[in-house]
């Protein structure tokens, strides 16, 4: 098993506009990124399970070779700043990814 936190240089979350949340995993090594992308390690289903959320709300999982990155974008559970907000910028939702192994 490889721990994501050992092979990633960046794991982050952030709003993409007020209604979406986007997660970036940027790998340290090209080969590790290519292996991760080729094996389809991260899918909508895998992400939904990790975050305990409906798969239908995971909008996309995209590999972006120029930055050795995989990007996951989801529907924000509520609009940024709506009543019940916990994280206006969405910058602290990366926790479950830190625990991910594959």
């Amino acid at each position: 098993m490889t721990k994501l936190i050992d092979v990633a240089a960046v794991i982050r979350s952030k709003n993409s506009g007020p209604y979406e949340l986007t997660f970036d995993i940027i790998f340290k090594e090209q080969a590790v990124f290519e292996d991760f992308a080729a094996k389809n390690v991260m899918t909508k289903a895998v992400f939904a399970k990790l975050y305990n959320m409906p798969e239908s709300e995971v909008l996309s999982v995209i590999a972006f070779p120029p930055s050795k990155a995989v990007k996951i974008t989801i529907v924000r559970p509520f609009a940024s700043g709506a009543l019940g907000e916990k994280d206006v910028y969405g910058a602290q939702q990366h926790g479950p990814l830190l625990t991910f192994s594959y």
Partner: protein
Amino acid sequence: MKEHRVLSPTAILGYGFPASSFEAGMALKPHVIAVDAGSTDPGPYYLGSGKSFTDRGAVKRDLEFMLTAALEAKIPVIIGTAGGAGADSHLDWNVEIIKEIAAEKSLSFKMAVISAQIDPEVVKKKLAEGKLREYFPAPAPTVKDIEDSVNIVAQMGHEPMVEALKAGAEVIVTGRAYDPTVFAALAVIEGFDAGLALHMGKILECAAIAATPGSGSDCMFAYLREDHFEVATLDPIRKCTATSIAAHTLYEKSNPTRLPGPGGVLDLTQTTFEQASEGTVIVRGSRFIPDDVYTLKLEAARKAGYRTVSFAATADPIMISKMDDIVKAVKERVASNFEELGEFFLDFKVYGQTGASFYGAAGPVPCEVAIIIEAVAETTAHADTICAFARSTLLHYGYEGRIATAGNLAFPFSPSDFSGGVVYAFSLYCLMEVDDPCELFPAQLYQCDKGAIL
């Protein structure tokens, strides 16, 4: 070879920059100084209230550098999304700062002020004509959403800025604008490729955040040429690397290869990032694909009530283990006591458990947890009442297994409750079709003579 040079002093007007970086940038003889001043990131409050999320003194400091240097070098300054959210009140706020600087520094220039505030009647008419489009996953706009909105703005493209530049404006300050446009407008006039100009703007709009080490308060510089652009830092401690620039393309965007904006999509599927010399990066292959129908993104906020919060904590392991049940019981108690107050919102943010996480987190049991009690109601008086009652109920709530019977909460402050004022919520986030990219963005052209508007 034709070359167009752009100086981006800072990620957001008011975030600052070292004078040495700015001067290094001016020494490279830029054709324009541009800055993006806005974001929806700080939430709906700023758009709704008409206030800036940046500090007036800090904005003035940045503008003093920019205006003085640009007028001396006879190059234009373009400021996008003035005041953070880009409604008319934000624009007025920024124009006042510019006038103040002009008076203090005896500066005279031709200034264009471009509003992005949209009349609700125009939006209603567009809705009736079927020219308002849902922007999934934001909800589809309704007449009520439009009527409830206090400020409606649209993100302008580069076209209104192009018109202002052609009219001879030396200082352009705009309401809400698509972030990259302020950097691209002059380049488009000069005949450079719109795709490259906009992608350059996308990187420059966050200034040195795209460098490594990154910083939101340092300058970036770009050279736009016929078939590529090159980005460089101006502070020797920072470098642009192919990885840092490519990674920035991901930042805050849903899809790194397809960036929709006013009038079209920036397509990065063919884009390459190449390390040029030490610390600069060359970008090629970015394309702008115009849409068949020009659309603008609308943003609006509505009033959602008044907020009062109370901050407390507990160090009792029994209480911590039963927190979910306790919170539920207190909420029920508050609801039954204040049925006559009408609708209100009561929330307990339990830090150490799930205060910050959207998706829960079963971590180790903490030895202390913090609790923010939040009440939002139709008036501050009602919010105060709900918050105070929830606080006193939680303080003395007799949960099962309770041993510490003197009080359940540790309060760090007296008074324990704080009024947060008006609460706003986003009310519109959708696309609107227009026939002309400039039709909703009237520009006013003034001669600013040492602060006096002629």
